[in-house]
């Protein structure tokens, strides 16, 4: 057993942090929210260059056939840096659905384009994911209804609390393929896992920003980071994030090994990462005070992102229910 990231993982994470850290992502995200997709699409291509979009594409289609843990590494970075766009959909979910659909329908797009980042596909998968994220950035909108896959038309743009999440209503088309139950379940679980990693990354960033702020902000003659009340709040965030991470890594292992426990483990990861990231965002706001409540200070972008992701890809209640069902069956 070696339950730890490898040097390759760390290298990949550092490369992504480096790329994203220089990309002024908050500003890209603000433009994206306003419908100016150019910066975000440019970032998409640069992430494609380092392999992000190819992760879940089979090697025979020009991809990397990467493991779920690689997805986790990538999406933690995407969450930490706030990259806008349908990454979960196009990088994680669509490849699984399209691979499963195979040649069933020539109407479906080719995997090669997804791999090299020239194509973007978004997916609506009600009930948990009723809208298609960033449909206007995608060449194609898929609709997954149970196991039925179709090409959908994007409808009205809705407004999310995270304005960089451009949610579109969808009008499903004719069924193009019927997928295997297990394949769909695994694909949706991997999407939920990617979202968990995004939450973890966003939570880590909210904590880091808070620590930095409390070390420099002075009130009553000293830096507010000296106050025990703030210290303890921030410590609780550290604890919550530290214990969410192994659940995410564990779920990645379960998915990789096709364990029967994978749904339970993904749900545990989503519950814990949503809770930890949400705590991080609440504490971040509380430690920052009014400045954290402003639109212009970047922290608010993470606060709103986390709020939206908490209920994305299955609400905490849904995932707790799956865990409960699994563990009460197991302990029969």
């Amino acid at each position: 057993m070696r339950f730890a990231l490898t040097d390759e993982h760390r290298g990949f994470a550092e490369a992504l942090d480096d790329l994203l850290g220089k990309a002024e992502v908050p500003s890209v995200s603000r433009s994206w929210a306003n419908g100016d997709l150019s910066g975000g699409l440019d970032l998409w291509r640069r992430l494609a260059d380092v392999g992000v979009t190819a992760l879940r594409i089979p090697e025979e289609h020009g991809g990397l056939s990467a493991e779920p843990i690689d997805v986790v590494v990538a999406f933690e970075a995407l969450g930490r840096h706030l990259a806008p766009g349908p990454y979960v959909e196009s990088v994680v979910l669509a490849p699984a659905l399209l691979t499963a659909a195979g040649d069933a329908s020539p109407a479906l797009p080719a995997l090669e384009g997804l791999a090299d980042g020239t194509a973007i596909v978004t997916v609506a998968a009600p009930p948990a994911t009723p809208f298609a994220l960033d449909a206007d950035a995608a060449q194609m909108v898929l609709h997954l209804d149970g196991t039925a896959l179709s090409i959908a038309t994007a409808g009205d743009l809705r407004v999310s609390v995270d304005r960089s999440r451009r949610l579109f209503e969808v009008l499903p088309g004719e069924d193009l393929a019927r997928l295997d139950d297990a394949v769909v379940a695994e694909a949706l679980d991997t999407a939920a896992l990617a979202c968990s990693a995004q939450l973890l990354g966003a939570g880590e960033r909210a904590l880091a920003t808070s620590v930095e702020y409390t070390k420099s902000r002075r009130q009553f003659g000293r830096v507010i980071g000296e106050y025990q009340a703030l210290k303890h709040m921030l410590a609780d965030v550290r604890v919550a994030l530290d214990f969410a991470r192994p659940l995410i890594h564990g779920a990645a292992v379960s998915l990789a090994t096709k364990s029967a426990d994978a749904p339970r483990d993904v749900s545990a990861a989503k519950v814990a990462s949503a809770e930890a990231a949400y705590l991080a965002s609440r504490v971040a706001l509380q430690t920052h005070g009014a400045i954290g409540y402003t639109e212009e200070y970047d922290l608010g972008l993470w606060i709103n992102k986390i709020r939206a992701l908490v209920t994305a890809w299955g609400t905490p209640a849904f995932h707790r229910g799956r865990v409960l069902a699994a563990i009460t069956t197991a302990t029969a």
Partner: protein
Amino acid sequence: MNLDLDERENAFREEARAWLREHVPAEPLANMDTPEGFTAHREWERTLAEGGWSVVSWPAAYGGRDASLLEWVLFEEEYYRAGAPSRVAQNGISLLAPIIFEYGTAGQKERYLRPMADGSEVWAQAWSEPEAGSDLAALRSTAVRDDARGGWVLNGQKTWSSRAAFAHRGFGLFRSDPSQERHRGLTYFLFPLDAEGITVRPIGKLDGHPGFAEIFFEDVFVPDADVLGTPGDGWRVAMSTAGNERGLSLRSPGRFCAAADRLAALWKERGREAPASLGERVADAWIAAQAYRLYTFGTVARLTGGGDIGADGSVNKIFWSELDVRLHETALDLLGPEAELRDEGAAAGGAWMDGYLFALSGPIYAGTNEIQRNIVAERLLGLPRGKR
């Protein structure tokens, strides 16, 4: 120990309820922190004033009804139950008016109260500064005496001024005696936001609307007539406002009770598909709102009997601000994957998310809840101040 209303109180409540049923707009107004919303909310203030409902607790001479504290609470209950709009004039009515009544000159009362009551002049508070947030006494903006012109010259910067993006006038503290520190040597000023030398820079809130602003002062002249209270006595004058802000007047129980009732209705509508645990949280939210309501009736009894709020205002503020967040979190969890939506097509027109974002400011503003807990521990429990 009773919760009975007398005849006058019952009649007052009935009258309010009837008037509100008639006048509350059927469609929600646009957000008050937008140009069109600000206008719509001012119009609503005028409507309220015409009905005599904008400042029920003020003397009739200034447009009020001489309502008792209890009647004010009853009015607020009816107001929120009716789903009436947020009060764009709130800051003036709740924070400034009590000070004008207590410390204002006859001229100030004459000049400012009626336009405040009918929405024709909206006031913004200007307390915080970049380096003086929780630590308000660290403020640095200055007021220099100008004997020649019979007034003061203000310089400096205020921030987090609610409503200032659109409001007409502001009020705040400035250091008028540079030789004094902290709570001493401060003076309370009133000023028009379009005065020469004032620049207002709106700041967007989490919801994207410019709900507050920075105000820059560059040699802004304010005549003596616009000093509230005695020069140098500003801290004491202002703190009675702060007590109000944290205490009864800014957040009446009606708001939370109405929200809890809406939450119960949402549960009734959606509970079947939602996890049962949310039902318990709905119950908890309702219990908390009810506790706040009854607590307020207790406070009314105490104040009516001559007591004062004191540090209990901090207990109050901690409770309502955290109840408000929890209540809205529960609503969002009930909405499931649609929780993140804010548009008009969302459940309740996005009111739950808007209410949630608004609630998030509660534990921060008017003294963070950390400051409030210090006050509760030190003033109510008698724990030593120490170094914290």
